[in-house]
């Protein structure tokens, strides 16, 4: 039991954290207000780079929101007790990340005031419209799932609901990948590999976020992880990181094989300036190589190494998304194959983009919102994993 003086201090720390989170959220909201007032002219986005840094943040959070549920799925669907004990925390993180990601996505709209239009007018052929249903459905379903886990009388329902959540989030991440897979005319996208790639990437990013939050909660409460549990969960992270890398490699290798895609691959991997640097150093080295060393090197793999590895995986995720979303748009559309084109609208030229402060603040505002929801909920409700002394499987 903590002493009374610790208790007092702890409360102060908690409120400082909440205040800091609130400040970040409010700054993000203010940035969104500026963007609505002045228009997107105050962002770095333009008619060539139509999706910018807010989308990098939003997609990261939405993909991670689905992936973090993997912990719950392994517990509920596949019946592993150490993951089952973590299912409530995993569900909470999913809701928090989804809320953060969707807020950024919504506030970046040209007309965020018309969000009700998006909720009442469905175009059945639009994957965006499907996602409106899928995202709000996940909110509802995960909330019900939490209820079945936290309310004892509902416990018998947690397995079927957990199964529904599992199916739902696989479909959801498929559709997140389809947003890009359906863009037939863009060299960077329009690949059937994208939905499975997004699913596997979500496993890695979600588990990385989970590791960071779980370790923070343990440290906050003065508890240490059982080495067995750390070992299992870090190995799983390592496998997910490698599987994600496999898909990213397959995506680029197939592109390299198609002659008409070689210009784009050359741009992204070699001579595109910032983009290849972010890809190799940010995603390759920081997002894959270093985390894998931290996880699998015989002398490493302790809790703090795993947290460092997780933070690096998250960082690498942002780097990958920046290259994918923004680099993918920066490379010119091939409207007239076989011709060199030039115009006043950027035809045939690499598009320029430098993110402005308001859009960066909006992105961080979303992260702040996820942080705030997690911090307050973990404090108010019992999300601490309770491991049984004996692990059966």
């Amino acid at each position, binding site marked *: 039991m903590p002493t009374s003086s610790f208790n007092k201090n702890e409360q102060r720390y908690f409120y400082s954290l909440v205040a800091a989170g609130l400040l970040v959220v409010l700054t993000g909201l203010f940035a969104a207000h500026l963007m*609505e007032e*002045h*228009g*997107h*002219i105050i962002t770095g986005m*333009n*008619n*060539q780079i*139509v*999706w910018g840094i807010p989308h990098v943040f939003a997609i990261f959070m939405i993909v991670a929101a689905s992936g973090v549920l993997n912990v719950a799925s392994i517990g509920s669907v596949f019946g592993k007790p150490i993951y089952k004990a973590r299912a409530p925390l995993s569900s909470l993180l999913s809701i928090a990340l989804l809320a953060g990601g969707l807020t950024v996505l919504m506030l970046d*709209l*040209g*007309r*965020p005031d*018309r*969000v009700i*239009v*998006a909720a009442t*007018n*469905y*175009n059945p*052929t*639009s*994957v*965006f*419209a499907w996602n*409106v249903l899928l995202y709000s459905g996940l909110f509802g379903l995960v909330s019900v799932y939490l209820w079945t886990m936290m309310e004892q009388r509902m416990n018998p329902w947690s397995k079927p609901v957990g199964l529904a959540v599992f199916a739902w989030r696989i479909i959801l991440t498929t559709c997140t990948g389809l*947003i890009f897979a*359906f*863009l*037939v*005319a*863009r060299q960077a996208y329009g690949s059937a590999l994208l939905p499975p790639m997004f699913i596997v990437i979500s496993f890695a990013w979600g588990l990385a976020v989970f590791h960071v939050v779980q370790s923070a909660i343990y440290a906050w409460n003065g508890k240490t992880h059982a080495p067995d549990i750390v070992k299992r969960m870090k190995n799983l992270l390592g496998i997910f990181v490698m599987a994600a890398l496999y898909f990213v490699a397959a995506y680029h290798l197939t592109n390299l094989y198609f002659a008409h895609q070689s210009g784009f691959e050359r741009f992204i991997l070699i001579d595109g300036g910032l983009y290849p640097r972010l890809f190799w150093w940010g995603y390759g080295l920081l997002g894959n190589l270093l985390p894998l060393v931290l996880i699998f090197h015989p002398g490493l793999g302790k809790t703090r190494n795993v947290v460092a590895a997780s933070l690096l995986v998250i960082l690498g995720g942002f780097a990958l998304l920046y290259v994918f979303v923004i680099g993918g*748009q920066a490379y010119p*559309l091939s*409207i*007239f*194959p*076989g*011709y*060199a*084109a*030039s*115009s*006043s*609208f*950027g*035809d045939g030229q690499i*598009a*320029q983009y430098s993110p402005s402060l308001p859009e960066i603040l909006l992105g961080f505002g979303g992260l702040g919102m996820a942080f705030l929801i997690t911090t307050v909920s973990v404090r108010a409700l019992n999300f601490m994993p309770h491991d049984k002394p004996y692990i059966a499987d």
Partner: protein
Amino acid sequence: MSDINVQRRQFLKTSAGLAAVAIAPGMLLFEVAHGKPEAVSNKVRWGMLINTANCVDGCNDCVTACNKENGLAGGLNSGGLSPTDSQWIRKIELKDMRGGRTLSLPMMCQHCEHPPCVDVCPTGASFKRADGIVLVDKHRCIGCRYCMMACPYKARSFVHEPLHDQNPDVPRGKGTVESCTMCVHRIDRGQQPACAEACPNKAILFGNLNDPDSEIAIKIRTVASTQVRADLGLNTGIRYQGL
């Protein structure tokens, strides 16, 4: 008793009279606003045939006419076009990478039969009129820009700034996406699109692709024309000759 009845009758008469006076101007204006009594139908498919041989390198008359007709600044206010300025039509200079042949042509919304922008729009703001014109409902567009990502021709622009001095015939909106309307307001009045009218060399032939006797249909039957990115199978309403 009868007093009350008289009053009521009087009241009803006055109300009916006032209502008629209030509604009549609106009804008249409604008639004026709807120039054509019949709705558009798919018997018509509006299209254009652009003869690149007649399109002169360096001539920008179609772009200027479009900007004027639709109230686009065209970079005039800011001393040059910026990547955030709307461009509904643009001139593209092309150089064949094999033979070195150069050509110049106008590029705008291709008014596809199967428009990707309409497929991806979450709210149905992007739509295709029965006569083949692809438009954006400015009241329904939420500004997500997915259509801009999906358009193979980069034909769409996002309104990045507050707008001033709009043309009443061509409503636009900050935070929404827009593109060439084929001057739908002019077509509905029986006129040609501004770009077609402005071209000094008659490089842009506008007409009804579905009418076998129209000049454009005859021309498309007799000369070789292509659709840009025909491989995508979108069946564009804009065709190019000499590409």
